[in-house]
């Protein structure tokens, strides 16, 4: 019951974030949605995810405020042309159709389909020695996933550093533009 109230709060926060005129308040409303997700994780029995979500949420809020503060304060009010709106209508219809099919197939709330993970839960402590089953999965059973994650994070940060660098390593005679 509390989860439903929290989800409604998050939906309201995301609508405010998308429709408000001020960019800074939009970013802060998005941060409220992230904090709501964090509390949901805590209530759903995932404390590890909640800690990670809180740290990531704070960082991305800081980064987004860095992007918006003291920039573009003129309001962009015009919507996109009619083609985009028709496209979003068609997409919403298709999305509702497929999500109806999907909601009929998935197991009901509170009864998960634990096929692979029952093996992990039963043998995780004996095989890996980690009492936290999530760390056992991340760092042992699916270690290659974590390697890929580290690679993606490295590439993203390297790309951001290259983009934000003030001066490129160009020769003096090559003029920009």
């Amino acid at each position: 019951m509390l989860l439903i109230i929290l989800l409604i709060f998050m939906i309201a926060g995301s609508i405010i974030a998308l429709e408000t005129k001020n960019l800074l308040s939009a970013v802060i409303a998005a941060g409220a949605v992230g904090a709501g997700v964090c509390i949901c994780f805590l209530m759903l029995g995932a404390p590890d995810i909640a800690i990670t979500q809180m740290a990531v949420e704070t960082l991305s809020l800081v980064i987004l405020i860095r992007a918006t503060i003291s920039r573009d304060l003129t309001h962009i009010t015009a919507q996109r042309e009619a083609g985009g709106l028709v496209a979003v209508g068609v997409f919403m219809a298709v999305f509702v159709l497929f999500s109806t099919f999907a909601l009929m197939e998935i197991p009901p709330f509170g009864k998960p389909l634990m096929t692979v993970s029952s093996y992990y839960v039963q043998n995780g402590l004996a095989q890996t020695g980690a009492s936290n089953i999530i760390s056992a999965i991340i760092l042992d059973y699916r270690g290659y996933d974590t390697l890929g994650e580290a690679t993606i994070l490295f590439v993203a940060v390297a790309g951001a550093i290259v983009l934000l660098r003030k001066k490129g390593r160009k020769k003096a005679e090559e003029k920009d533009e």
Partner: protein
Amino acid sequence: MMLIYVLCMILFAIGIYGIVVKKNLVKIIISFCILDYAVNLFFILIGYKKDGIAPIMMPGQDKAQFVAQTVDPLPQALVLTSIVIGLGITILMVAIAIRLYDKYGTFDVMKMRKLKG
């Protein structure tokens, strides 16, 4: 209790709407973050067991009871990866948005005409 899945889908749909309709680059980035939250939350909701406990084995706990009560750990492990990757994506998008602002002086995507190929 299908209502909670439906609310999560509504959050996802709001993210899609923002990405397609909004013209401000920062609003598009925020919509992407909301989309990310909705997908992560949906995975955790699927793995939830009623009156479940976190999948961390306490010392002295009965193993059979732990196996019967714990929530699904596999979606949680994957979502942990997904959250960190989402942070990387957000950083890259904000960097590109700051660069575009320096070049064009606006966040309005309709005014960035030179990008048309």
